[in-house]
């Protein structure tokens, strides 16, 4: 029997954005076993939502679960609350919410792509994508007033309206961004040295993806058709030209392609949204206290976010359950690592786009 060596990876590492610890069991260079320790970011938000904060304050609290998908967290929570207390949101508010979610998706995907490039050893591409990402950050700042934490959604609608000036600015910036994304797409597609590090590495089959319940780009790259945008009627995604993006390879290259194509389709969707924003109020008055159970789901950049709420006619909720995409993605991630080379670990890990502050809450 061959001997195996245990190599810890994390919780502080130059290639890691956030604290997570993996324990790799390796045989020569090959990984044979993985253990993941995910509790480094556990803060106890579920408890705080039911004991310190009232239900109207929670949108800005759950936004701080994760900075990258802040809008989706508060939006899913708000959707769940609106189901319990029967608030009908106006069409305009729905369009503005969709706009913000798609912008958030673009900036999160670009961050992930740049991180993957950096961890494959391509520093210049990292810098290029990060520079292009500032365009999206500027748009977000113009709409919501902050670069990362938007606090844009509230129960009953949205907090801010957009003006014609901002609409013009967004369209101008997106037209600027589109050729740059196509450049990057070309780079990921045709660069020979990148293809050595991406093609065929960290692959997962469609069968395994559905056994281990993979989500988001990780599943769509393997050909598994799962996307909440196509699975719910709450937002009019079909009207604004939503298409599901699928790849068949399931490796890092496939995931990058899914992300890049999603960025391009999100840009198209945003343009469609801006063309036909309906007229109406942006905020409805909210009365009453939540009573009953409800669930809400939404497609975040990394997959499906799920909220379960239970209220008992009090200002404080009885139970808030958050299920985040990375949380249910971890079994699939652990499965992918087995059989890979240790040297590929940073690039594979970055291509999952793991979000540990979501996972541990």
């Amino acid at each position, binding site marked *: 029997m061959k001997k195996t060596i245990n190599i810890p990876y994390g919780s502080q590492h130059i290639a890691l954005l956030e604290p997570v610890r993996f324990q790799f069991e390796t045989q020569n260079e090959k990984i044979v076993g993985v253990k993941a320790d995910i509790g480094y970011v556990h803060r106890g938000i579920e408890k705080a939502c039911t004991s310190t904060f009232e239900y109207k304050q929670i949108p800005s609290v759950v936004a701080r679960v994760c900075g990258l998908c802040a809008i989706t967290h508060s939006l899913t929570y708000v959707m769940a609350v609106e189901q319990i207390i029967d608030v009908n949101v106006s069409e305009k508010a729905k369009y503005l919410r969709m706009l913000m979610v798609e912008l958030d998706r673009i900036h999160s995907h670009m961050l992930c792509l740049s991180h993957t490039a950096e961890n494959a050893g391509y520093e210049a591409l990292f810098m290029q994508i990060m520079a292009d990402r500032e365009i999206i950050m500027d748009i977000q700042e113009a709409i919501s007033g902050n670069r990362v*934490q938007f606090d844009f959604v509230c129960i009953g609608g949205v907090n801010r309206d957009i003006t014609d000036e901002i609409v013009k600015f967004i369209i101008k910036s997106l037209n600027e961004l589109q050729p740059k994304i196509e450049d990057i797409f070309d780079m990921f597609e045709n660069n020979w040295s990148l293809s050595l590090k991406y093609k065929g590495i960290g692959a997962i089959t469609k069968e395994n993806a559905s056994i281990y319940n993979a989500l988001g780009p990780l599943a769509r790259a393997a050909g598994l058709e799962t996307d909440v945008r196509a699975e719910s009627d709450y937002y009019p995604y079909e009207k604004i030209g939503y298409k599901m993006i699928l790849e068949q390879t399931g490796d890092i290259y496939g995931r990058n392609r899914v992300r890049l194509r999603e960025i391009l389709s999100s840009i198209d969707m945003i343009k469609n949204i801006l063309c036909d924003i309906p007229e109406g109020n942006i905020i409805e008055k909210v009365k009453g206290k939540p009573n009953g159970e409800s669930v809400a789901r939404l497609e975040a950049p990394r997959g499906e976010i799920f909220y379960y709420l239970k209220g008992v006619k009090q200002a404080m909720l009885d139970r808030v359950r958050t299920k985040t995409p990375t949380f249910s993605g971890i079994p699939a991630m652990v499965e992918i690592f087995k059989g890979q080379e240790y040297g590929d670990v940073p690039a594979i890990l970055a291509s999952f786009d793991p979000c540990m502050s979501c996972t541990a809450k």
Partner: protein
Amino acid sequence: MFEKFRKKSPWILHYNAGSCNGCDIEILASLAPKYDLERFGIINTGNPKQSDILLVTGPVTLKSRERLVELYSQMPEPKVVVAIGVCTCTGGVFRKMYNVKAGVDRYVPVDVYVPGCASSPDQIIDGVVQALAILEEKSKDIEKPKRLFGELTNNSIFTNRREMAKKIKHEKN
């Protein structure tokens, strides 16, 4: 000579002690072309033994406190700690939660507090520039001939954790 280089090009170490990633991506953005912190000679390292400035983000959770203290004690003197974001300064919204204590300065001494949720890159640059001034002051302080002025005490500086544990044990006895 080394002191001169250190002043001109400090290296930063970044540790996420349970933040929401908002401040972390803003640190990355401030290293990226638009705000380019590398103009000041700063580079992001992953090695605590070679870095001078520790950027901490996030309210320190119970599980990550040990790592944070370990990283801090591994850094060579002089060192500066910059707390980025409101939850690092005082706890922010996470202040009353059971797995979090209010602020980083419960565990390590903090020199610069940067507000903002999430701190935007220009605030981070402000904070790091502030930290550079403090670093300079501290390195001057270290170079003072302390033996001559009678300021040298036994328990001033620990370079690593083992030494610290040994000394504390010694004092207890």
